């Protein structure tokens, strides 16, 4: 046999597809798949909610306290006052199946959460920042609105199912795309939930005090204070922007003919 020297052939082991075409196909395709999965999960949770009545939920989670989720602030005197305020506000929702319980989370960030079984968590950071009872009443009323609309179960359900879903996707870059797709998909839903909870909270505040003065002053202060971009970006991800919320609430109050000014109740501490 004769030896004939040859140059290596090009293009046998390397695909023709341009890397950018490959990249965009994968990114767009996978984002679409993630969006479809997330929408399916949201739908399945709506179906599941249909089968769990609020009474069942109240029985099941009646004395549940997720200790790995919150750090209960020890001996905070304000707890009694808040519990009394919640009880007063809850009277404006007479057919509520829940017995509301309040706990203070020992955290600097200002936040409030609605958890299954009528558990309302407020952070120490929030309590340090509210300046009148009316401000606090609106935040608590907003959380009552989440219970009324059963958003707390949706949030929990989505959290659990999505966490399970992303436990399967271990590659961090892929999970990154998935989380962003999920974020975008859920954002529309969660913003609508927040707006609905705002409406309920404002109605509760109006019934309790006879006016809505200072209901959204916390947000107004926030808007001025919050020049830190990073804070704002994380906050934006689930809640509508505070500016929009204030506009919506003013509009609601005007439409309902609620008084925009009135006697503001000072805090009891």
């Amino acid at each position, binding site marked *: 046999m004769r030896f004939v*020297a040859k140059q290596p052939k090009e293009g046998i*082991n390397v695909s023709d597809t341009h*890397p950018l075409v490959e*990249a965009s196909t*994968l*990114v767009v395709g*996978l984002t679409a798949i993630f969006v479809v999965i997330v929408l399916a999960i949201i739908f399945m949770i709506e179906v599941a909610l249909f089968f769990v009545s609020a009474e069942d939920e109240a029985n099941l989670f009646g004395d549940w306290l997720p200790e790995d989720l919150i750090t209960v602030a020890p001996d905070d005197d304000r707890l009694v006052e808040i519990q009394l305020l919640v009880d007063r506000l809850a009277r404006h929702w007479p057919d509520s199946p829940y017995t509301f319980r309040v706990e203070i989370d020992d955290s600097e960030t200002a936040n409030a959460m609605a958890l299954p079984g009528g558990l309302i968590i407020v952070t120490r950071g929030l309590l340090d920042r509210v300046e009148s009872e009316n401000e606090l009443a609106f935040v608590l009323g907003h959380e009552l609105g989440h219970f009324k609309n059963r958003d707390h179960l949706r949030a929990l359900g989505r959290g659990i199912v999505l966490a399970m879903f992303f436990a399967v996707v271990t590659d961090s870059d*892929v999970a990154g795309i998935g989380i962003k797709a999920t974020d975008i998909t859920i954002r529309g839903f969660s913003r609508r939930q927040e707006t609905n909870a705002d409406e309920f909270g404002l109605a509760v505040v109006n019934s309790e005090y006879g006016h809505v003065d200072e209901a959204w002053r916390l947000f107004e202060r926030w808007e001025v204070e919050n020049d830190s971009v990073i804070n704002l*970006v994380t906050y934006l991800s689930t809640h509508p922007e505070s500016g929009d919320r204030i506009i919506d609430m003013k509009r609601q109050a005007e439409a309902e003919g609620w008084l925009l000014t009135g006697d503001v109740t000072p805090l009891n501490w």
Partner: protein
Amino acid sequence: MDGNLETLELFLNFGFPLLILMIAYFIGSHIEKRHFRDIRERETKVHGFPVVSFNTMPDDWNVSSSDMVTGSIVISLDYFKRVIAGLRGLIGGRIKTYEPLLERARREALLRMTEEARLQGYDAIFNVRLETSRLANARRDGKGVAGVEMLAFGTAVKFASRFANS
């Protein structure tokens, strides 16, 4: 102002990772093109040097000396290739972004081996083999991939007389 914040947030969420990905792509593909150009030039230079994979020496080779020659290259993925391969890993199929990388590694390893043999005055190489090994990334518990090594080795021989045609 609200619109600006939305834009900023969108940029932080999507634009920034995309920007890094694009920078990685342009730098990576520039290096890749340059490497392929270099490989082709050097392949032209060693053109005609017999490199064969027979595991026994052809009968008509009359050799005076022999030695083992090796050529090795350690090559790493760029960020772009790794991200795209990660996406591909979810649904399966050809990892197209890795193919040129490994092609570069194979040809470079063979070239280095051939160049070494020529430098030492050998005339041909037989029993050429290729081996790969994965180099783990020590930073992430050895789980990540730092790169791959491609090793080409073979037996280089010096002909006693010039290649005789049979």
